[in-house]
């Protein structure tokens, strides 16, 4: 089981390197180290939310409302900054908003016993609607967004630490934290077990409810962090800031090796896959391919990878079906 995981992560790393080299061949600017490092700020938020999303998926759930949570946190931040609140306070409150959204999701799942897919579908509208509502009341119409933030704030996303852009550093730290949590801490093991067999988890008195609140809360928190980074990076707070993050994040988690039904997944895999998906978008842009095609290619990538995984998992079934089809053809003389 572990060997399979390691193989997959190595394969992802190799594909990532190959991808960068491929794009570099098309547009040599891509291979510039600075370019590689600083372009991550465009897409690194995919990775920041994909990591806790992986944990949620491992536990057997899913959260499709994270895009709306990001939007809500962004607007909340915008409103607070516009009102003149000190930056540190606004940031802390934004984190609180994100955390509350996540805990709200967990509470609904806990108290209604309804599938997380349906619950987060509802909160997708609720949070997204709340974001629109807030921004509307704050005077920004439609998706225009709130702008004109203090410089100290907008410079944040452009700061560097040891020559690396801050968002990338944050991503690395968060990856490390999640890796420790998932693969080295007791909490992570519980998540795997709960995802594999919820009934046996109950019988073994594992903290099923506590873990629920924990993982969804973390998604909310990460969404808030992503919102802060994005608002700082783009200089404006829009309610649809997170709309295009869900699909890539989910793709990253599945590509990274998570089973959508729960019970298995890899933090390192997700992190590598997030970089993969991000650089894909980036590289396509630099190769001059229009944005629209990149979403098609991301979708195609997901399908191809999942087909590959499915084929290897269901080798037996596919072989017998194939054999049966061929045998049938022989009998009927086709």
């Amino acid at each position, binding site marked *: 089981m572990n060997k399979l995981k390691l193989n997959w992560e190595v394969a992802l790393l190799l594909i990532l390197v190959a991808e960068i080299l491929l794009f570099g061949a098309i547009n040599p600017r891509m291979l510039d180290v600075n370019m590689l490092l600083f372009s991550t700020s465009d897409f690194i938020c995919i990775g920041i939310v994909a990591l806790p999303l992986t944990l949620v998926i491992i536990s057997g759930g899913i959260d499709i409302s994270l895009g709306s949570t990001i939007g809500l946190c962004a607007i909340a931040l915008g409103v607070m900054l516009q009102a003149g609140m000190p930056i540190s306070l606004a940031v802390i409150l934004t984190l609180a908003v994100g955390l509350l959204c996540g805990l709200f999701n967990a509470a609904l799942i806990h108290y209604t016993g309804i599938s997380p897919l349906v619950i987060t579908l509802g909160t997708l509208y609720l949070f997204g609607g709340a974001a629109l509502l807030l921004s509307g009341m704050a005077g920004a119409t439609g998706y225009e967004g709130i702008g004109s933030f203090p410089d100290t704030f907008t410079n944040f996303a452009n700061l560097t630490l040891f020559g690396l852009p801050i968002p990338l550093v944050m991503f690395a730290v968060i990856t490390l934290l999640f890796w420790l949590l998932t693969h080295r801490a007791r909490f992570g093991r519980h998540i*795997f077990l709960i995802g594999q067999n919820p009934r*046996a988890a109950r019988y073994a008195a594992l903290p099923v409810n506590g873990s629920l609140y924990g993982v969804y809360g973390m998604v909310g928190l990460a969404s808030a962090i992503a919102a802060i980074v994005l608002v700082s990076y783009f200089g404006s707070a829009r309610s649809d800031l997170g709309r295009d993050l869900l699909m890539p994040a989910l793709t990253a988690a599945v590509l990274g090796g998570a089973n959508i039904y729960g019970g298995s997944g890899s933090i390192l895999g997700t992190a590598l896959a997030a970089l993969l998906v991000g650089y894909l978008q980036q590289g396509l842009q630099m190769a001059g391919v229009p944005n629209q095609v990149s979403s098609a290619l991301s979708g195609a990538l997901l399908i191809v990878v999942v087909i590959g995984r499915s084929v290897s998992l269901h080798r037996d079934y596919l072989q017998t079906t194939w054999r049966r089809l061929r045998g049938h053809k022989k009998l009927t003389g086709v």
Partner: protein
Amino acid sequence: MPNTTAMLEAHHISKQFSGVSVLKAIDFALYAGQVHALLGGNGAGKSTLMKIFAGVETADSGELKVHGKAFGRLKPGQAHELGIYLVPQEPMLFPNLTVRENILFRLPRQSDIEKRLQEKMRQLECQIPLGATASTLEVADQQMVEILRGLMREAKILILDEPTASLTPGETERLFRQIRALQNLGVGIVFISHKLPEIRQIASHISVMRDGAVVLQGETAQLLDEQLINAMTPLDRKHTLSDTQKLWLALPGNRRTQPQDFPVLRVEELTGEGFIDLSFELYAGEIVGLAGLVGSGRTELAETLYGLRPVRGGRIYLENREISGDRTKSRLDRGLIYLPEDRQVSGLFLDAPIRWNTVALNEASVWQQSKREAAVVERYHRALGIKLNNAEQTVRTLSGGNQQKVLLARCLEANPLLLIIDEPTRGVDVAARADIYQLIKSVAAQNVAVLMISSDLDEFSGLADRVLVMHQGAMNGELRKPSITVESMMSMAFGGGKA
């Protein structure tokens, strides 16, 4: 008299699953009006063979002849048209459809279909409301619905897979009357069961399967019980409980060397889901058996003691401390450990490594400690005789007996004061069974109170110090060491007094 052409004939049927031979060149024949019993232990291949007959699975090689015509493979639809119907062991109903829709599913809408349904129900003396949603039925009723399905399809070849598993004696008798009526109509019936008395009652021919092959075949009248039992159990694994075989196991943590003078578990007038007004005590070091029929409330009692079901009345005391309202985690921490009866569904995490399964109840630190845990697994590997390759392999790859040992290791690692084991040897082969009995004894010898629930009354005779017998949710009586006989237990389980 059965006629000479077989309704259903199988020649040299073989099947493999992922390289493992599940059926090895099986020959089988069923004649009209005949009841042919199929006997065999778990994993003998009976269900797979029946699935091949019903078209749900395909044989890798061999020939299947139905009414004289040969078929390479059957599709379920084809099998139905040929009049073959399989009544599965676990009822497979549509939970959200009504009983009527379940029974009449995919049957052509003939004008007299309603009349025929009522007729069949009357013959079986079945009182299930037709408009009820299938998910609300009890297992016995669900089984009846399955049987009705087969009957309504005018099956010529009816395969019954353990049909009497959840039926009361009265219901079983009624089913047998139906079977005899069907025999008179020329229907051929394959009857899978492991209950010898029933087979003697109803079947004219018996085939015994073991490890994927038919090892004995013949007329019921000419086969002795001894022959049948010998055929089912493999010769080289005959084991008797020997005192000299010591599997010793030192339990972790601080253990008391002297038993207390108060009981480890005291239950006072306990009422819960499935039982009323139970009162009993368990002392350290004794093995107490809990006997009774299916549905007598034993597992419900165990789950209530463990905290998974609510208490409706009465109190539970663990070492003189009331725990009636405690959550399961705190009961675990205090030493009340429960090993559930369906280990694959409620006990083990099949796709997780052995190491994870072993320490699931006792994780001291916030961090996973792979070295320490591997050492723990190694200790149990030696002490319990678990056959494994390494601590990281998934539990799914182990045999039934070894899986049970892993579960036992987990319970022991949690430092129990009271160990409740539900069906310890279900689905476990004979060799591992002896090991498990030894382990229970050695655990009790270290001042653990053991409550053992089992449907196999023979197990109690050598093992239990006392046996409590339950009947329909009430404690019918208690038997002590010299008087623990299968007859007494059986009689009390059915509601009577000591035999």
